């Protein structure tokens, strides 16, 4: 049969489809056996793909990704994509692949082994109201801007606020017992807020339920093997959640957020004492709500005093990683659901977060996406 130099064959199509990733699972659709059939005839390509579940919220994204990847190939005139749904057996095989296959012993999370390439950082504080969640989302955004894949666990189960601050709503897709985290600008995130019937519902649980929720967040969520940093937004203090995190994770680090007033130092120190008891390394201190600049060029007003962050860092013998200025733009960005680092990446507060991210990447190197 005559073939023009531009003719395309099935092998080339499959090779190209290998570049197409499932938008939720972050793995090639070919590797996940989601491509069931490919037919090529006179430049017309027909792809039959299967979705994990029929109600896949990103079905159109998958179709669009397949189409645009194949249309970029020379010799392709037309692309037709048809979608089906995996059988229970196919879905089980996919779950096995996500968990690392039989050789991985069915492990579900990339950071449950001490030699995991994922760097886990728990963001802690002694008392509440110091802006820990704000620091977590902005740090996640800054690490993402630097090119890393980032996940965020909202472990502040009673006082969850990450969904609002990251502007993420909806329910995670569940493929059998594996939960796929929601995503915002490449930041993968899981929160108890995604599981509640109503966003304003309260979580009224005792310790064992909290422990189970955290185990689920860590062990049942498909974070992906490519995750460079996992940030955990802890509740304030040294209670059940902090202990559970320390017991579940074989290797993690801690960042301590405090405010500048000296009275906060003693309270923040308790978080560090807990870190020492559970063998978590404290990476440094972030002082939040430092000087407020009322007008450009005006001297900063130290509403919450000064020196607390440095004093805490000195006591703990760790670096003071940043003094984040008290800037209403940080609060406004959080209320709008876009971290300031993404909304205005070049402002002074965003720069401070980006510098912390750079120092963390230096101190705890991870692979760039």
């Amino acid at each position, binding site marked *: 049969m005559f073939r023009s130099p531009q003719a395309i064959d099935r092998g080339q199509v499959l090779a190209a489809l290998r570049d197409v990733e499932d938008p939720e699972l972050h793995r090639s659709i070919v590797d996940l056996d989601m491509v069931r059939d490919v037919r090529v005839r006179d430049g017309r390509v027909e792809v039959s793909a299967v979705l994990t579940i029929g109600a896949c919220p990103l079905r159109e994204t998958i179709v669009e990704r397949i189409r645009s990847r194949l249309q970029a190939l020379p010799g392709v005139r037309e692309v037709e994509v048809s979608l089906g749904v995996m059988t229970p057996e196919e879905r089980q095989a996919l779950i096995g692949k996500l968990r690392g296959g039989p050789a991985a012993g069915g492990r579900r999370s990339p950071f449950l082994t*001490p030699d995991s390439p994922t760097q886990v950082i728990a963001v802690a504080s002694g008392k509440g109201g110091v802006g820990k969640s704000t620091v977590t989302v902005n740090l996640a955004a800054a690490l993402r801007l630097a090119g890393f894949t980032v996940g965020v666990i909202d472990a502040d189960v009673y006082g969850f606020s990450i969904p609002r601050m990251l502007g993420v709503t909806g329910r995670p897709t569940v493929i059998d017992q594996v939960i796929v985290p929601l995503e915002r600008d490449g930041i993968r995130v899981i929160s108890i807020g995604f599981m509640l019937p109503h966003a304003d519902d309260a979580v009224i649980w005792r310790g064992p339920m909290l422990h189970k929720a955290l185990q689920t967040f860590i062990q049942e969520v498909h974070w992906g093997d490519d995750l460079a940093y996992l940030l955990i937004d802890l509740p304030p203090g040294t209670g059940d959640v902090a202990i559970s995190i*320390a*017991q*579940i*994770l*074989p*290797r*993690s680090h801690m960042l301590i957020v405090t405010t500048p007033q000296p009275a906060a130092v003693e309270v923040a120190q308790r978080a560090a004492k807990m870190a*020492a*008891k*559970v*063998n*978590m*390394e404290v990476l440094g201190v972030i002082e939040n709500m430092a000087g407020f600049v009322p007008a450009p060029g005006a001297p900063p007003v130290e509403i919450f005093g000064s020196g607390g962050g440095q004093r805490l860092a000195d006591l*703990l*013998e*760790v670096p003071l990683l940043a003094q984040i200025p008290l800037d209403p733009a940080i609060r406004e960005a959080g209320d709008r659901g876009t971290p300031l680092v993404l909304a205005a990446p070049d402002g002074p507060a965003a720069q401070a977060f980006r510098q912390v991210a750079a120092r963390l990447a230096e101190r705890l190197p991870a692979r760039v996406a």
Partner: protein
Amino acid sequence: MPARMATPVEVGSITAPECTIVWSDGHRSTYRWGALRANCPCAVCVQRGGHPPRPLPDPLPALRPMQVERVGAYALRFVWPDGHRTGIYPFPLLREVLCECEACRARAAGRGGGAGPVLD
């Protein structure tokens, strides 16, 4: 930065006659299984007999754990044949207080103590 605690680099088999742990600082600890069980640090055992180290029963119970698990980055958990599994043994307790190696026992005896805190 404060010094980190010693961590196990090798934990011996539960089928061995005694428990052995090689630590990141090079120390090699040995323990009688029964002494570990008698020194369980869980809340119930502490309420019953006080904090470890406790006076050991004579004779020691002859048992071995069914399983040893690592807890986070700071402790080991032993699952005993009677189903007791709530004791989380922090590494400093194992390394500095409960170690029964010859050197640690000699030092403890020199201080007139039993299996009291011993530091290299």
